[in-house]
Every structure is written in structure tokens, then in C-alpha cells.
């Protein structure tokens, strides 16, 4: 088992495995998203106070969860790669970053469109929203740093250091913004009153969250395959792979 894992840590060995896993995760993502959307739009009843607009949370909450999970996973892979000097880990963190940034953007966008009809404002400097915005900046910094360094090995290690510093900072940033928000209480809107959640809403959200997981894994695997091919372009097997693809 252990030696099998070590074998898979080689990009060349992981490439076909990722290719085999890809359709399964894509299929699961599509099926779960369809089920989740069905629950969100046809099963879940209209909310008494928020009307139809609350249906946004079925995409907003899973996207917000994913944006944070992916950052932690990215930092985890990056740190693992830094400690163990495995090439695949760095590629994995590169493959996750754009998807994480995309989910962060979706969380911000849908949050704004949910906030307008619910609280009467697109944007409030609330701790959660502000931290999410800073998280987007952290993703963009990570992607920009990796893109600016030519040598892939150096880019991986520099990115890993940045991701680790960032992951230490995210909770501190959240806490500091929350602290700041209590000081300026008059200016902000209280966003703490969450609507009480019915079981069917929870089901819809769970399905959508699972779909987001599967989607992230599928896209990360596809991007990982692309990165592996790019980095190993001079290796014989990669040339063969490209000529047959």
C-alpha cells in the first residue's frame, strides 16, 4: 500500500490515474448539481420572509465553503510538498488555486446579490464578506507569484511559503475585521440573524456542496494533467501522450 502511494507520487504514474478518475468525478458533479438545483428550485418552498431570493443561498453557501476549503487544501499540499520535496504536491496546489479563486468570486458575487433584497445593500463591511475579499486577494497573489517565476521548482517552493504564511493569517484577518466591525457598529448592518433552516433547505445545500466538491476535484485533476504535461514536455512519455491525444 505504502509503496503504491509512493509510486503514485510520481507525475508520470499519476497522470493516467487522474485521467481515469476524471470522468467519474465529472459525472458525480453533474448529477449532484442537477439534484441540488432540482431541490433548490422545485422542492424547497418559498420562504415566508425572504421570498424567492433566498434560493441564492444554495449556490452562495457551498461556494463560500469551497473557497475556504480549497485554500486550506492548497496550503496543505504546498506545505507537504515543501517538507517532503514531492513534485506532485506543488502541481496540485497550482491546480487548485484558480478554482478556489473562482469559488471566492462566486461567493462574493452571489453574496452581494443576496444581500440587496435581504438587507437592502449589496455590500457591507462585515467580517465574513471582508475576509472573503481578502481571501480573493490572497488567491490572486498566489497565482501571480507562481506565474511570475519561470522555474517550476522554484515557483512551487515560493508559492508554498506564501500559502503557508497566508493560511496562518486568514483566521487572524477574520478576527481583526470582526473586531474592527464591532468598533464601527453604527455604520454596518447586523448580518448575524441567519434564517432558520428547514430540513429540505439543508438537503439542497448539502447536495450543492457535494457537487461543488466533486466539481473542484474534477477540475483540479484536469488542470493537474495539463500542468504535468507542460512540465514534463521533454520527457519521452509526455511526448507520446501528446501525440496520441
Amino acid at each position, binding site marked *: 500500500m505504502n509503496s503504491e502511494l509512493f509510486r503514485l507520487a510520481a507525475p508520470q504514474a499519476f497522470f493516467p490515474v487522474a485521467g481515469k478518475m476524471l470522468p467519474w468525478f465529472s459525472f458525480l458533479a453533474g448529477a449532484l448539481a442537477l439534484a441540488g438545483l432540482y431541490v433548490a428550485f422545485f422542492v424547497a418552498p418559498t420562504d415566508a420572509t425572504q421570498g424567492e431570493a433566498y434560493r441564492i443561498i444554495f449556490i452562495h453557501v457551498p461556494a463560500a465553503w469551497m473557497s475556504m476549503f480549497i485554500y486550506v487544501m492548497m496550503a496543505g499540499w504546498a506545505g507537504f510538498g*515543501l517538507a517532503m520535496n514531492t513534485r506532485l504536491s506543488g502541481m496540485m496546489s497550482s491546480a487548485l488555486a484558480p478554482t478556489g479563486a473562482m469559488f471566492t468570486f462566486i461567493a462574493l458575487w452571489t453574496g452581494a446579490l443576496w444581500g440587496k433584497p435581504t438587507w437592502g445593500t449589496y455590500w457591507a463591511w462585515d467580517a465574513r464578506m471582508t475576509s472573503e475579499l*481578502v481571501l480573493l*486577494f*490572497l488567491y*490572486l*497573489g498566489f497565482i*501571480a*507569484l507562481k506565474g*511570475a*517565476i519561470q522555474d517550476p*521548482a*522554484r515557483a512551487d*517552493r*515560493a508559492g508554498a*511559503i*506564501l500559502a*503557508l*504564511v*497566508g493560511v*496562518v*493569517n486568514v483566521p*487572524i*484577518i477574520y*478576527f*481583526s*475585521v470582526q*473586531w*474592527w466591525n464591532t*468598533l*464601527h457598529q453604527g455604520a454596518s448592518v447586523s448580518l448575524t440573524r441567519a434564517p432558520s433552516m428547514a430540513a429540505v433547505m439543508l438537503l439542497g445545500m448539502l447536495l450543492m456542496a457535494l457537487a461543488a466538491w466533486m466539481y473542484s476535484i474534477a477540475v483540479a485533476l484536469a488542470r493537474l494533467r495539463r500542468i504535468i504535461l507542460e512540465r514534463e514536455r521533454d520527457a519521452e512519455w509526455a511526448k507520446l501522450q501528446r501525440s496520441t491525444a
Partner: protein
Amino acid sequence: MTGFLTVLRRELRIALRRKGDALNVLVFFVVVASLFPLGVGPEPNQLRAMAAGVAWIAALLAALLSLARLFAADYADGTLEQMLVAPQPLAAVVLAKICAHWLLTGLPLALVAPLIGLQYGLPADALCVLLVSLLVGTPVLSLLGAAGAALTLGVRGGGALLGLLVLPLFVPVLVFGAGAVTASLIGINPAAHLSLLGAFLAVSLLVGPWASCAALRVALD
């Protein structure tokens, strides 16, 4: 320890020979802070309310400007490589450079800031809090900024990239630093803000030099 002192003395001596560099950062800080009222209007209450934020943002930008040069010269002429293979630990060298950076930018900036506060009509106790918050907070800018400077060493588009990397990390400093002044303005004891700022300084003291050393090793690999 001797390594630390040697590097610190060297950095300060170089800075003394090029006084313009440190002075420019200070002038930049004053100019940025002085331009804000021209943009938002001279209403005294409004200016008083935003004084701390303006001083802190100007300090962040000034730190950012000077950070780009923190390792660049030593990297270009190969001194950094020598420091890496020298017997004294790299952490001592990095800490000395961070220390020198703070002495040359953070400290003068903090000492000038009360003058800016006067322009914005801050009362005396708020001026004191501004001074203390900058004294506690600017070392964080040097510590975390050094990591950013090391990460962007020899990378194309380094300046803007450095801003993108480190400015989000400075959010807690900005919040606690400016918040301390605002708190004292509205009659709340700023001690809580300042101790949180101190706690963040302690965290940066652990994270900053580690990340800088690791990033320098990567850059010089």
C-alpha cells in the same frame, strides 16, 4: 549574535552613505498623508475621523516602497549568496536586515506621524496613541514585508507583485493600529487594540524571519 550586529552595523553604514533613500521614503509618507485633505475637503470632523486611517495607509505604502530594495542590491552583487554560505545562521542576517529596515523607515515614520496627526486636528492623547501604535505596528511591516521581498527577489514585475502579496497580510496591522487611535478618539481605552497589535507582532516575529529565510534559500537555489 556577532553576525547579527555585524550585518546591522553594515546596513546602517550603507544607509548613512545613501541618506537620500531613507529620506525619500519619509518624504513620500508626508506627501501622501498631506494630499488626502485636498481630495476629501477640509471639514475638521471628517479629517479627525480619518486621520489614523490615512496615516496608517500612507505608512503601509511607504513601507512597501522601501521593501522592494531590502534584498535587491545584495542579491544583484552576490553579497546575499555569500551571506547564505557564511558560518553565521541566515536567520541572524535576515533579522539584522529587518531590524535595519525598521530603524531606517518604520521608526522615523512613527516619529513624524504625530505631525501629520496635528495637521488633521487630533487631540494630544490620540497623537500619543498614534505614535505608540506605529511604534508597535511598523516592525510587523518590516517582518512580513521582508518575506514578500524575499519571495519576489529577481522576479519580473516585482514591485506590483510585492504589493499584491504583502498588502492583504497587513490587514490586521491596519485594523488594530488605526483602530487604537479611533478608539481613543471616541473615548474607549485603546489598550486592547495595542495589545492585540503586540500579539500580532509576536506572531510576525515567528512567521516573518522563517518565511524570509526559506524564500531566500529558494531564490538563491
